[in-house]
């Protein structure tokens, strides 16, 4: 990099003459080497999936989970420096708990993303800290029904509240991605880590904005995308970690939970099958090429 030796990358919070903050850009580099993480916002829930690279054969399979629950209805996964991700989760949990203490209600997903986003951004401002070496994906479900105040007694009129507008749409699935700069946007599909480019192009094919993909389809797609994105670094072993948050009428009842083993394994089986099929197609194409010669 041309900037080496100019001295503008030695301290956090120092701009280069052309207005860049190199420390933040190096933090992004740390993310680019992490295992791929994917989030999909489906019409009736959110799926979070992670390609967890196995760093040692001595570690217990399916232990050491990397997708964390922040509050009952919110899950977080990050790619990059694992300890930074752990600290991010600690902060996110503190924010969610603080919200509950004041408002006696679950924190809306966008408010949680906003608060942790500010925290991450603050780490680009001071020379005593370094930026977060992670990009985090935050997924959750804001209740579509009325939420009582935590600890409230009684339930109001038996005939229901007066003047309530029926049929209004409230709450639903939400997905945000927070970068080392503290920047965050809401997404239909989010991907980060080593295989993000492949994952993003796969996510684009799903036409998530149409809002037709169901949570069950989403789980299968998420698993497939992690497997496709892993193709390029085939040498390393990995585990697929997957969690979801459904609507109140869905399988998790608005909670963030691990995808059950049977459903995950079925999704993995289909993912592997689709990869094998693609390989066959490629071979056939090659044959076709030869015949044309």
């Amino acid at each position, binding site marked *: 990099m041309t900037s080496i030796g100019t001295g503008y990358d030695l301290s956090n919070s120092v701009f280069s003459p052309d207005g860049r903050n190199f420390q933040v850009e190096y933090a992004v580099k740390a993310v680019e080497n992490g295992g791929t993480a994917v989030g999909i916002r489906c019409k009736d829930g959110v799926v979070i999936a992670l390609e967890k690279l196995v760093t040692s054969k001595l570690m217990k399979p399916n232990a050491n989970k990397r997708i964390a629950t922040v509050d009952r209805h919110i899950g977080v996964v990050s790619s990059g420096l694992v300890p930074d991700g752990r600290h991010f989760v600690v902060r996110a949990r503190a924010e969610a708990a603080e919200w509950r203490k*004041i408002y*006696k209600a679950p924190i809306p997903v966008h408010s949680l993303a906003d608060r942790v986003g500010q925290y991450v951004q603050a780490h680009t401002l001071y020379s005593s800290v370094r930026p977060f070496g992670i990009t985090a994906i935050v997924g959750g479900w804001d209740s579509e029904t009325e939420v009582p*105040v935590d600890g409230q007694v*009684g339930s109001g*009129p038996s005939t229901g509240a*007066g*003047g309530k507008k029926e049929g209004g749409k409230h709450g639903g699935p939400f997905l945000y991605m927070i970068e080392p700069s503290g920047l965050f946007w809401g997404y239909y599909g989010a991907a980060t880590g080593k295989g993000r480019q492949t994952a993003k192009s796969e996510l684009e094919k799903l036409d998530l904005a149409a809002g037709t993909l169901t949570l069950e389809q989403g789980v299968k797609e998420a698993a497939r995308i992690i497997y496709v994105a892993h193709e390029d670094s085939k040498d390393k072993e990995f585990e697929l970690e997957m969690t979801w948050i459904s609507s109140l009428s869905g399988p998790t009842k608005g909670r963030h939970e691990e995808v059950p083993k049977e459903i995950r394994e079925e999704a993995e089986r289909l993912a592997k099958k689709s990869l094998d099929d693609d390989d066959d197609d490629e071979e056939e194409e090659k044959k076709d090429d030869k015949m044309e010669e």
Partner: protein
Amino acid sequence: MQPTGMLGEDGIHVDMNHLKKGEVNLGTSIMAINFKDGVILGADSRTTTGAYIANRVTDKLTQVSDTIWCCRSGSAADTQAVADIVQHHLSMYAVTNDEQPTTQTAAAIFQDLCYDNKDQLSAGIIIAGYDHRHGGQVYSLPLGGSLHKQSYAIGGSGSTYIYGYCDSYWKENMTEEGGIAFVKGALSEAIKWDGSSGGVIRMVVLTAKGAVRHLYLPDQAYEGPGKQPKAV
């Protein structure tokens, strides 16, 4: 003056002197009800300093956000301070979270303040609000700081005289006219029997159309709303 807040030898202590000498008290009749299209808040208008009526046209119905109001009873100073703090929190909530606070949010903040400072405060508050998602809601927050969601709530010294009235005449899903008549009837009785309540009857009707104030005067036997002020 007797020491306050301490238990007597028998383990019982009723603090009759919870107000400081000369402190203004809202010896009060307040209520809020759910009706077909939203909520109605009502209150008398008497503020006393001992036997002296410090204000005969007090407004005990206080707005804390666009569509959330409260009825205040107890110490005028305490309840004004609490309502001011809640109003501040709710306005901050609206800008930082890009959405209007719900009645639940208001009730939770009121409870947080009133429970955490229960030893210092003398405040009995009824919170009522309207929003499209939840419709009209009424929460009662009595002295200890517990929070109760109710169909209707009555409070203040005058409320003790109208438990029977309200229980007899209460109907769910009343029309606006029915609701106003219910609140007016109940508060008229409370004012009649309670020496610490009196003056005019103030009301706020909260619906999808916004907040509308009503005023009923004793020299007209609380009949008719008279000249209607413009919607707030």
